């Protein structure tokens, strides 16, 4: 009789642990999803800012047409991109195009002084750093999720319920500094879009 109760007790404990481990995995997965959607929100925000910026710079520096077209094309390519590698290269083209656009603006004192341009520059810098922060948060959550999925004994639950490890959202240059922030950093070089959970 005692043995039966001991077995029952052990089974109950095991089930409780399994529920706990499963719920932790779900929490980490949701946080990673949340981080991913935040990156998406900020990238979209950047797409929205580009036409405004190009239009403003065009008013003062109409002959830089080549650069405007390049940025517009990169934007269209990023929005229409299918597949991770394609989008990653398009986002990088946007980043480098925007950097050059802001560098060009340095040559036009009237443009640099215009309230509209200053507001756009602030928005763009803000968005670039939000992309960086969103990526930082996402990577941290992915690290926690992957550790849970791979380490024993939670790995048993993870494999039973098909939790899969995710890839980090990598960039070319992890260094952050005043110059980087002022010109804006970002992009998604080398990014492998994580496969969505089934």
């Amino acid at each position, binding site marked *: 009789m005692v043995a039966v109760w001991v077995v029952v007790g052990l089974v109950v404990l095991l089930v409780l642990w399994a529920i706990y481990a499963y719920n932790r995995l779900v929490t980490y997965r949701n946080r990673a999803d949340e*981080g991913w959607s935040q990156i998406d929100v900020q990238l979209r925000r950047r797409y929205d800012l580009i036409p405004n910026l190009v239009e403003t710079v065009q008013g003062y520096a109409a002959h830089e047409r080549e650069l405007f077209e390049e940025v517009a094309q990169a934007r269209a390519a990023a929005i229409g991109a299918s597949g991770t590698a394609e989008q990653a290269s398009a986002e990088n083209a946007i980043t480098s195009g925007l950097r050059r656009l802001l560098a060009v603006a340095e040559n036009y004192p009237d443009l640099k002084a215009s309230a509209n341009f200053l507001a756009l520059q602030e928005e763009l810098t*803000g968005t670039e750093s939000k992309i960086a*922060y969103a990526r930082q948060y996402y990577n941290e959550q992915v690290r926690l999720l992957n550790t849970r999925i791979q380490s024993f004994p939670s790995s048993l639950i993870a494999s039973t319920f098909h939790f899969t490890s995710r890839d980090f959202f990598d960039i070319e240059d992890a260094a*952050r500094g005043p110059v980087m922030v002022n010109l804006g950093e970002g992009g998604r070089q080398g990014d492998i879009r994580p496969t969505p959970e089934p």
Partner: protein
Amino acid sequence: MHEQIAANKRKTVLLFVLAIAFTGLVGFAIGYLFFQGGTAGVVIAVGLAVILSLFSYFSGDRVVLASTRAREVSAEQEPRLHNVVEGLAIAAGLPKPRVYVVPEQAPNAFATGRDPAHSSVAVTQGLLDIMNRVELEGVIGHEMSHVLDRDILIGTVVATVVGAAILLSEFFTRSWFWSGGRVGRRDGGGGDGGIVTLVLFAIGIVLLILAPLAGQLIKLSVSRNREYLADAEGVLLTRYPPGLISALEKIRDAPHAMRAANNATAHLWLDQPSRIPGEQTSAIEKLFSTHPPIQDRIDRLREM
């Protein structure tokens, strides 16, 4: 970090219990001495203390913000500040706090609220004027870790409870002072009046000494190490220690003193508001300060 959050919640509950018990005791003393029965006094005092506690939990942030004359700013008015706050909220995985500016020339900042969903970050106008973007990110990163660790809840509750204690002790001592002559006349008529005067006087003196001292001790236990911790965690969010270092150096060298320096809210600020620029702090001052010396904080960040 989860231990920090749990410890802060425990401390807040303990603080409420102590404040309610202390008020109940005072209520009992008053009821027993003046109305020949302590029960009613206890009920009234505990009732008042519970109301005060609920009030400080739900509205403490508004009281603190109002006492510093902070005004809420929109994203159109302060785009840079809003962008930085939103960026660091994303980095910490928290909802974006409300953003306030305090009309004050000394560079400083604080965070308040009862939880991350009801949090506010306030910076002084002086801070906005002299900090560049990375320095501002350093400062907001520090404040965001206070939000993340729930330091803001206990800090805000302490501010309102200490504020109320200061108010009460002043009320008692002043009412004793002003009623001195009247009670003195009654003293001539009967023996009871003399005891009443003495008791009122004693309560006033005890409260006068105890309230600010207790407040000071609570603030000390809440604050100092939090600041080092928030510096470290803030830098973990921004991934850029030189930003906060340079911000702290600017605060250290700023020529302004805070005008709205106030005992009840001192512990909430990024740096102690009562610190006079350029003045060396004595050993006694160090013992009673709510914040570690700013140079120590800079040195610790440099070592990271």
